[in-house]
């Protein structure tokens, strides 16, 4: 899949938190309470358009707020909102752990 990083702001964000040996994983495998930077989104996923309109974009900082008691879905914080996603949707989002302070918009 083609992945192009677009704007200057997003390019800048990619410099933040780059530690060299980044571990890429999909959001469904991420840990609760940890902040991540979105590395890529699989636009073949049927919910990708919905996710991008809610602000899930490459370079954004998100936080996996919690996992539902039965293990699915997960709640994700970004730009001041909390969004519940099934793991099927979360699988479309590849993230890298982010250690920067605060968060970025």
């Amino acid at each position, binding site marked *: 899949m083609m992945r192009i990083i677009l704007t200057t702001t997003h390019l800048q964000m990619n410099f933040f938190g780059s530690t060299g040996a980044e571990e890429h994983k999909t959001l469904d495998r991420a840990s609760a309470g940890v902040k991540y930077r979105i590395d890529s989104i699989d*636009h073949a996923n049927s919910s990708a358009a919905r996710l991008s309109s809610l602000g899930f974009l490459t370079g954004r900082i998100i936080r996996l707020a919690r996992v*539902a008691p039965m293990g699915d879905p997960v709640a994700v914080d970004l730009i001041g909102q909390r969004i519940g996603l099934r793991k099927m949707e979360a699988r479309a989002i590849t993230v890298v752990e982010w250690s920067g302070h605060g968060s970025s918009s």
Partner: protein
Amino acid sequence: MVQVLESTKLARVGLIGNPNTGKSTIFNRLTGLRQRIANYPGITVEERIGTTHIGKKSLQVVDLPGAYSLSASTLDERAVLDALTARGGREPLDLLVCVLDATNLERNLFLALQIADFGLPMILVLNQWDVLRRRNQEYDLEKLKEILGIPVLPVSARSGEGMKGLETEISKVLEKPCYLAPTAWSREINTGLEDLIGLAPGLSRGEALRLIFDGGSLVADRWSERKGEIQQRVGRIHSEIAAGGMNPGPAEALIQYKRIGSLLEGVIDSDTSAFSRSSETIDRILLHRVWGLGIFVAVMWVVFQSVYSWASPMMDGLEWLTGALQEGIRPVLSGLPVLESLVVDGIIAGVGGVIVFVPQIFVLFLFIALLEDTGYMARAAFLMDKALGWCGLNGKSFVPLLSSYACAIPGIMAARTLEDKRSRVTTILMAPFMSCSARLPVYVLFIGAFVEPAYGAMVAGWTLFLLHFVGLAVAAFLAWISQRLFSSKTITPFVLEMPQYKVPQLRNIFIRVWGSGREFIVRAGTVIFAFSILIWALLYFPHSESVSEAVEDDMVRELVVTEGLNQVEAMALLKESGTPAAIEFENRLQASYREDSYLGRFGHFVQPVFAPAGFDWKLTVGVLSSFPARELVISTLGIIYQLGPDVDAESQSLRNRIVNEKWPSGSRVGQSVYTMPVVLAVLVFFALCLQCGATVAIIAKELNGWIALGSFVGMTVLAWVAAVAVYQIGTLISGTL
């Protein structure tokens, strides 16, 4: 002429915005109770229209469904798109009031920017300004106004702060329109836009953008004859966008959010990216794996109990009122027997049968409004999603299905909270399988008469308990099968905003509960009314004299033999009111009229169909007459078994009568009609059959008439098959014992 009409027409103001922005609160503030639910062909989303007066001018205000974007992949989004482009029977809008959640401006602005391409005058409202103030956050509104070129108003709809200013601004902008400048699209997108507009006559700029950006947009259906060409051109535009160095998938979001970023630069100083701290604290408890589930069960228990028990005194009251009205009217019309029966047994009984559901609807919608207004509903869906996902439902199906255990009607109406069409249809079709409270009398009668005497209270209790799961199990299994057969995707998409917690506002809740109750009475009431008159007529006519003469002759003959009276004395005894003989005569007469009625004859006629389930003609008539409402089977059986219509499920005489009922002729002459396999077949039949005219009417209203018919036929056939299977297998087993 046209111009004269134009000038007298009310200006139309559309309220548009994301869900959970308080848009409806603003609508309620503007219109009060002067509102109704709009009804457009083929669209079942809730869209309310109200009127308001600003100065001397009257305006029409339309509360469009909440939407995150215009991708038109959900019914709500499609309705918004139709409203923006004045399609699907809608009048054009003169002004858009775009309501944004001030505490979540970045995401909310996305829709506002999408709308800009539709070229309508616009005002931005930043709602929940009070919350923002409490958090000590400040926005530079003057700057935002200047950049956007349209009015930006801070409002707190809950307290009413800023509403006066909004009204003034609405009338100002209606006089002198102002527009939000559309986003500057890239060269590839702009040329693509023009190509598409040339290709499809009448296509607006905003719609053309939807074609480019949303693969599954329902916009394309409007130009179905050009669909192939449009698709080809959109494909080419995508490759041009890609060649220009941008991924066409998220292209729109990237461009719009980039614009939002630059718009908000210098407007918002503080960091607003973290989720509300107080809501995070509440979520820590309410979504906890132990406490969260415990509280959820407790909340649902309260809701269910309330629908069941709070409503029941009111329902009893309404039933009493219906009865009192019947008794009051009966003597007034006693000179006109047909009219008496039509009014008392047809109209009052029929309308009373609908009104009796209103308390349950009020109570359930009170809770739904409360759960949604506080923000808990989204949490309940989040907690339950996994448990329901396997059969094509999602977490939001839980409340509709649970409340269907009290009554399917409010449950089906509650399914409006589901955005995903397939989950919503599945939920609605599953709802009538849930064992509603009207099935209980039937269970109680048959279990009490047969299972309890034969096997004891323990088994009777278990039977009652298991019957409440028969429908659920069958429905879940069917949903799972249909999901495997008809769906290419195994899991439906589920993206759910979990809004910040809020204190519910009584005014909103009241308006909502009132609206749903009124709507139910008007819409379902008309259909039920017609149905109950029809069933009454089928059970009343032909009502021929010969029936009464035959019954009279029979009874006179019996009295002559048993009591040693002569003909004249016997006849006098039958006419004397209040004597046991006269009551017996009246009951037998009613039973014979029912047997001779068109429905009774039909019962005899179709009895062979129910014979494989072990039903005799009386049970068949009972089943047939209970299609308008299943609990009618009790009073119909009471009439047929000559006990009068006022029997209930606890009635000892009805129990005795059915226990002792024998086959009068045929191969099983002299044997009991109600053997255990027959009883179980009856119970399973009632557990699965859609014997409720009000439910069929409400499915037709929420989805469409064909689905309602399909659901009715499907459940009836299924109930029959299950009853036959239970009877046949049961007979085999009891034969071998």
